[in-house]
């Protein structure tokens, strides 16, 4: 069964899966890298991003290129309230943040169930159709995701490496007190990082809802994926997200295509457990001192 | 005099960095040995290696003629080697007495089922542990604060308590990592007396510090470390006269020390 077309299709599927995983995991790793917060409410923000896109694009008909970033930005800015109410108490407290933010996830998701009912709906695709290259088929909506993920990854990397705010973030990530002593307003920096992270979660949630389906419980899967990607690559590392996303995406595509669905899940979970035991800081992360 | 502790060619690497290289020394029973050297000389790593907190890359540690290389700390405590930590380490939320009781744990642990059912044996052991701890508290002057939370004690008392926790296991060798760091001159003198009294109980002492003045009034012999290796060993007078020591370590700091 190892035909070139099958192989090609598996590669293409691997790329598109990797892209969505990278997109979902970027915000997660940013929150961890800078504030040491394990954002178990990440899936809830992805879900809110899905609903925002559903209204802004699906219902109100705002042009897609504006609607996608606008709805994500809306979620991110609204989430600032939660930053003040909830998140700031968990900064630099990795352990407490996990359980506390699981609570936040619960509260948001079930509020959404009350508002929107639990049933699934769809967000209309921006580009429906397929591109066929030499027998290998690529759906256009997934092509869009690959493009956005690549751009986001590059932008993230360049931002943290070169921009003034990005450098300030990195300084704050390394040592809060020293950063404060250097005159960096950590509260502001944290808020900025928070908004960017939630923006990414909501944007990814929009794509996710569009590609799959929209429901209050839809965030569970993206959260799980973000979590695995980030552990694989190394918590807090942006190149780690790229590597982790690619490994997970290709593993799922190839194991799924050639060995079946359950094998893919067992293998990825098993690999992550082993990694956590022997190298908890991930492939590209740095161990804590 | 046979050596109580004998360290041979101890080596420890962290990645590409060699923290301790080819370190050998002996400690005689009843001796106070000082380990001295500038920051980064590998003193604390050396103590960590001997006390089992980290395993050595190579080399050998013998205690009372027995090979104890790479044994974990709790095993070494059972054999009579304990240590204290550079930063004060006490159980801050617990009473001073409870801190002491935790130090006495291993030597006086009655066994799982005995303690579970609180047998006569377990009660006897506990009474004994309490007696040991109370005696130590009395001996080092903490009886009055025995029911206070350890975290509420002044810094100097916390350091003393750290030593009590170590002594409660009734060791033969105690290793003190910078016992006077952060203390004022008067307190330092007090600590020096305490250490001498500890030795007076027949306990061998290894003490780490970088303050030569403090060390020379305390130690029988001094081991000077430099860049992870042994630079010199001998009485404080011998070491101070050693040209290699003066050049490598004391040369630029001599004036500063004299000014103290």
């Amino acid at each position, binding site marked *: 069964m190892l035909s070139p077309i099958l192989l090609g299709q598996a590669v293409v599927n691997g790329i598109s*899966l990797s892209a969505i995983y990278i997109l979902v995991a970027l915000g997660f790793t940013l929150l961890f890298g800078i504030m040491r917060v394990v954002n178990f409410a990440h899936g809830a923000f992805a879900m809110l991003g899905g609903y925002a896109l559903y209204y802004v694009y699906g219902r109100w008909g705002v042009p897609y290129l504006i609607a996608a970033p606008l709805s994500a930005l809306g979620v991110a800015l609204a989430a600032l309230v939660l930053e003040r109410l909830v998140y700031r108490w968990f900064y630099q407290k990795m352990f407490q943040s996990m359980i506390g933010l699981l609570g936040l996830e619960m509260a948001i998701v079930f509020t959404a169930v009350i508002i929107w*009912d639990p049933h699934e709906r*769809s967000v209309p695709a921006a580009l429906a159709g397929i591109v066929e290259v030499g027998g290998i088929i690529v759906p256009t909506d997934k092509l869009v995701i690959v493009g956005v993920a690549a751009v986001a990854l590059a932008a993230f990397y360049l931002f943290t490496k070169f921009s003034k705010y990005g450098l300030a973030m990195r300084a704050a990530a390394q040592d809060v007190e020293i950063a404060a002593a250097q005159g960096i307003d950590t509260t502001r920096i944290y808020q900025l990082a928070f908004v960017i992270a939630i923006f990414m979660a909501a944007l990814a949630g929009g794509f996710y809802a569009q590609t799959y389906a929209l429901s209050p419980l839809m965030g569970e899967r993206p959260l799980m994926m973000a979590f695995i990607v980030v552990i694989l690559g190394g918590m807090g590392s942006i190149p780690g997200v790229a590597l982790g996303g690619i490994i997970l995406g290709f593993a799922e595509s190839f194991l799924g295509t050639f060995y079946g669905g*359950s094998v893919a899940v067992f293998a990825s979970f098993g690999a992550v457990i082993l990694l956590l035991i022997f190298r908890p800081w991930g492939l590209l992360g740095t161990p804590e001192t | 005099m046979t050596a109580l502790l004998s360290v041979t060619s101890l080596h420890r690497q962290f990645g590409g960095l060699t923290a301790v290289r080819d370190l050998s020394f002996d400690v005689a029973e009843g001796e106070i040995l000082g380990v001295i050297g500038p920051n980064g000389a590998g003193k604390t790593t050396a103590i960590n290696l001997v006390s089992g907190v980290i395993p050595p890359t190579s080399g050998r540690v013998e205690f009372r003629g027995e090979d104890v290389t790479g044994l974990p700390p709790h095993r070494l405590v059972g054999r009579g080697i304990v240590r204290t930590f550079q930063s004060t380490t006490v159980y801050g939320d617990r009473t001073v007495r409870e801190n002491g009781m935790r130090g006495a744990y291993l030597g006086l642990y009655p066994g799982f089922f005995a303690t579970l059912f609180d047998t006569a044996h377990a009660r006897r052991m506990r009474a004994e542990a309490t007696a040991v701890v109370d005696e130590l508290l009395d001996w080092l002057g903490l009886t009055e604060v025995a029911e206070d939370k350890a975290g509420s004690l002044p810094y100097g008392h916390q350091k003393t308590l750290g030593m009590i926790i170590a002594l409660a296991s009734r060791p033969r060798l105690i290793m003190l990592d910078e016992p006077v760091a952060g203390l004022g001159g008067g307190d330092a003198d007090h600590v020096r007396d305490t250490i001498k009294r500890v030795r007076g109980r027949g306990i061998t002492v290894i003490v780490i510090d970088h303050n030569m003045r403090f060390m020379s009034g305390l130690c029988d012999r001094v081991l000077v470390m430099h860049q992870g290796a042994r630079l010199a060993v001998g009485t404080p007078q011998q070491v101070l006269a050693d040209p290699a020591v003066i050049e490598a370590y004391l040369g630029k700091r001599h004036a500063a020390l004299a000014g103290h």
Partner: protein
Amino acid sequence: MMMNAKAAMAAVCGLAALAAAQPTVAQEDLKVGVIAALSGGGTAWGLGLQRGVQIALDEVNTAGGLKVAGKTYKLSMVAFDDQYNAAQAKTAAERLVNQEKISFLFGPVGSPGALGSLPVTQPAKVLQFVDGYAPAILKNEWHAGYVFRVNNSNREFAGPIVKWIRQTMPEVKKIGMIAPNDAVGQAAVPILVDAYKKEGFDVWVEYYERGSKEFTPLIVRMMAQKVDLFEINSNAPGEAGLMVKQARQVGFRGKILQSGGAGVDEMIEIAGPLAEGFLKYDVIEFTAPEVKPLVDAYNKKYQGIINGMVPIYYNAAHILLEAIRRADSLDTTKVRDEIEKMEGWETKMFGKLAWTGQAEYGAKHQIAQPFFIKEVKGGKGTVKTVLKPE
């Protein structure tokens, strides 16, 4: 919020019913129980169950109540959530049976809840109307004493569908299935596979872990097997819709059919134009004239799309109420015997009532009602054929 609105609505309806009843007749309360998933994944079906029963009760109440042995009863409902979980279903059943003292129970939908509640209801002789694919719901230590399955299980509908495929699609030789590795999939798929094999088809099955949304790798794997018909089997509507969409996106050109589930609208919503030509089992045709009164009553009282559970449980409630009238008693044994004897009774929208299952489960407590194969045409599910269960 939703719950409050519902409670308020129920109160208003209750008042209306009270006002409509003749003031001279002293009325007593008869409470029936409902256990359904009212939170989490199975909520859409749980709400359908609850609403279907409520509409039937409302009809009887507005008509003056239920007359039994000289007394007139006003009907009301107590509904508890089982979160699609066995332990919760047991607790809910305990409470309904022992505290609320109900004798008639609708639900749960789904095997875990049904199997969790049976040890409470059956020894207590509580008459229960469930839906779920697990054969053990009827085939158990109580010999299905006081439990009826009021929806076709796939043991009843798989055979006729497969035969229909044999007759109408002679080109189909090999079937591919991608199934959830959960209670529904593991119970339903073997039965379906048997049905296909019996008719001489080749069958290829692959399971996926629940929660997965990306089926493309598995579909590509399936396509490499050169299957002619993609059987979506027991997948929930959301996953089923995604499978149709993703299969078409990667260029699967064979037939796609689902023998299972209920309701085609949610799938069309998710698969969009790619759902065109998709064939699906369904329990009801909502545009049929005999169903219209129910749809109207539903839309008057509730928001949200009506689904297949509403008519199924509306029907079940009326079967029970008719049996109580015939027995002229609230004794569950007498009522059960009447239900068994009701074969041939004209239901409101499922034709003549029929019970089956003696051979399969050792008790004739399995409903057998005609069902539909629908085809998606122009974005709408249209009836392709009506089949009878075996």
